């Protein structure tokens, strides 16, 4: 029934429309969101949604949404090289935020800070803070493993595990010690449905996931992340290894997913950023040059460098 509700919203709100007029129609949007979140439980985000629905205005600068991540003066060094310089930005919840910019400008590096994948790289040094629900991600109270169940990630190359489709989707839950077969089956099914893959694979859940097509594999990876019911899904150029049709499917999917999840996506394609995102951050040489509503950014960039990049003069 949840899915049905989502479908309705999808029809009533085209992606660009919702991005262009967030202030005009906050009521219906947030009420829907609150509904969904009440049924889902009470996270801090859910509380924020309810507050908004009740007419309380959250912090200024974010018209209708609570921040998911607040990056505060973040610097990141790979050994001597400074990859990120004084990053300050706020990722709003339940929006699609796109990171664009030329190669090697720090987009993926920042993305990996949100689920602390940079911990796996040697010689990485980070200072500054990233707050999630008001807590520092890198602080002692944050458990990395728990963080990664809340902040899922989809990689550039589809990376399904060499096991069955079912086992791939159930993997995260099983790692959390969940063994209940009936429950696992339910979650696998709903996750695959949400990732728009269920109809294609429902009769062959035992099939090796590596035998799926590239686009299907990537949607499987999304399903795998969704199965953990995360708050955020990070996507690192999720469509760059896919053909145009598979890309289109993933883009449509993101539009559905943002109702339930906050999405941060790194993309090389400005068209993709324009098509799917609500907010866009433009990166250059480790700095965020501009961060704004996607519509504003693409129609009326305030920085000359952004304008040059968007109009294709470099990059």
């Amino acid at each position: 029934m949840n899915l049905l509700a989502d479908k309705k919203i999808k029809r009533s709100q085209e992606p660009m429309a919702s991005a262009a007029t967030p202030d005009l129609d906050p009521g219906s949007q947030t009420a829907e969101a609150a509904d969904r979140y009440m049924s889902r439980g009470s996270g801090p985000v859910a509380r924020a949604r309810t507050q908004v629905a009740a007419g309380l205005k959250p912090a200024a600068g974010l018209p209708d949404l609570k921040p998911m991540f607040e990056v505060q003066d973040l610097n990141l060094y790979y050994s001597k090289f400074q990859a990120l310089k004084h990053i300050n930005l706020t990722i709003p919840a339940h929006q699609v935020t796109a990171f664009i910019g030329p190669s090697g400008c720090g987009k993926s590096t920042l993305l990996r800070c949100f689920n602390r994948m940079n911990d796996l790289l040697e010689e990485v040094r980070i200072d500054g803070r990233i707050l999630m629900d008001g807590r520092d991600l890198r602080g002692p109270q944050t458990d990395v493993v728990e963080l990664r169940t809340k902040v899922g990630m989809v990689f550039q190359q589809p990376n399904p595990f060499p096991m069955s489709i079912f086992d791939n989707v159930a993997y995260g839950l099983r790692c959390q010690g969940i063994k209940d077969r009936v429950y696992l089956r339910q979650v696998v099914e709903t996750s695959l449905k949400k990732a728009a893959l269920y109809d294609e694979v429902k009769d062959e859940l035992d099939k090796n996931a590596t035998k799926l097509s590239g686009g299907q594999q990537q949607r499987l990876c999304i399903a795998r992340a969704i199965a953990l019911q995360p708050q955020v899904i990070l996507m690192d150029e999720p469509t760059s290894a896919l053909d145009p049709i598979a890309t289109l499917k993933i883009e449509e999917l993101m539009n559905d997913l943002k109702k339930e999840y906050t999405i941060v996506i790194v993309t090389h394609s400005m068209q993709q950023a324009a098509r799917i995102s609500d907010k866009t951050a433009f990166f250059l040489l480790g700095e965020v040059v501009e961060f704004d509503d996607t519509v504003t950014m693409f129609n009326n960039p305030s920085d000359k460098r952004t304008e040059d990049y968007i109009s294709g003069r470099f990059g």
Partner: protein
Amino acid sequence: MNDRQPNALMLQHNRQRRKISDKIWRALFLISCVLSALMIVLIIIFIAVKGIRVFLPGYEYGQQNFWDFLTGMTWRQDSKTYGVGFIVINTFTTAAFAALLSFPVATLTALFIVKIAPERLRVAFTTVIELLAAIPSVVYGVFASGAITKLVQQLAAFFGQTSAAGISALSVILLLAIMIFPTICSMAIVAIQAVGKSLEWGSLALGASQTQTNFKVVLSAAKSGIFAGLVLGLGRAFGEATAVTMVAGNAMSGPSWNLFDTTRTLTTTMLSGMHETSGLDYDIRFSAGLVLMAVILLTNALIHLIKRKIGGVDHE
């Protein structure tokens, strides 16, 4: 026209030459391939012809009954009784037990070396394993008859068993376990190294711990190569003759399920005293060789079957 411009005739000539050289190289590759395949075929034919001869009518030293040979549980030169049944069982059990001991340790060692050990330790361990693989089998044999048998003798005494100075099936098993360890381990190392970082990251990003990632994703993705190592290791265990002969003891009948008893494997049967004998006793060793090849082929087939069963979704 610029005289540095390559002339068309020359270019065409070069193309012709390249075509011919392609053909020659292809023929060379084919020849070397055929040669190596031919070796195997020749060996099999030779062993088969020599081995089957003793069962054929008109064999000069007295025709043997093939069925008695396969199922016989005694091997005595003095009474000319040649039964290979218990020897096959011994060969199989010693190799299997050795693999059972070696395989888990080797796999975990490989995992440790590739995924967990810090750089320096990794280099040190890899060198150790390469060295282990390079030790000649006769050296292993000397070590086994000097050290392992002593240990086994003490163990036997501890359990109130008698053993022929430690010459026993258990000694063979321990020796083989050590000998096949580097084979299995180095194959496992290669297989685990080949697992892409992306799978590991994918697992960690789903909130799996490093240990869960190693066991559930890395090992499962490396399964194929690890099993290939097991097959090679078993092959070595089945085929090792020199070192095994030094601690096996050439039991004349069996099988004995007491690990402290002496044993006899197909290879020891073939090897010991080969040059001091002739006639039937000499020829029947080829029959034992034929059986050994059959055992190895069957085991390989079995392992592939098991792999497919538990692998289920292995990437071929």
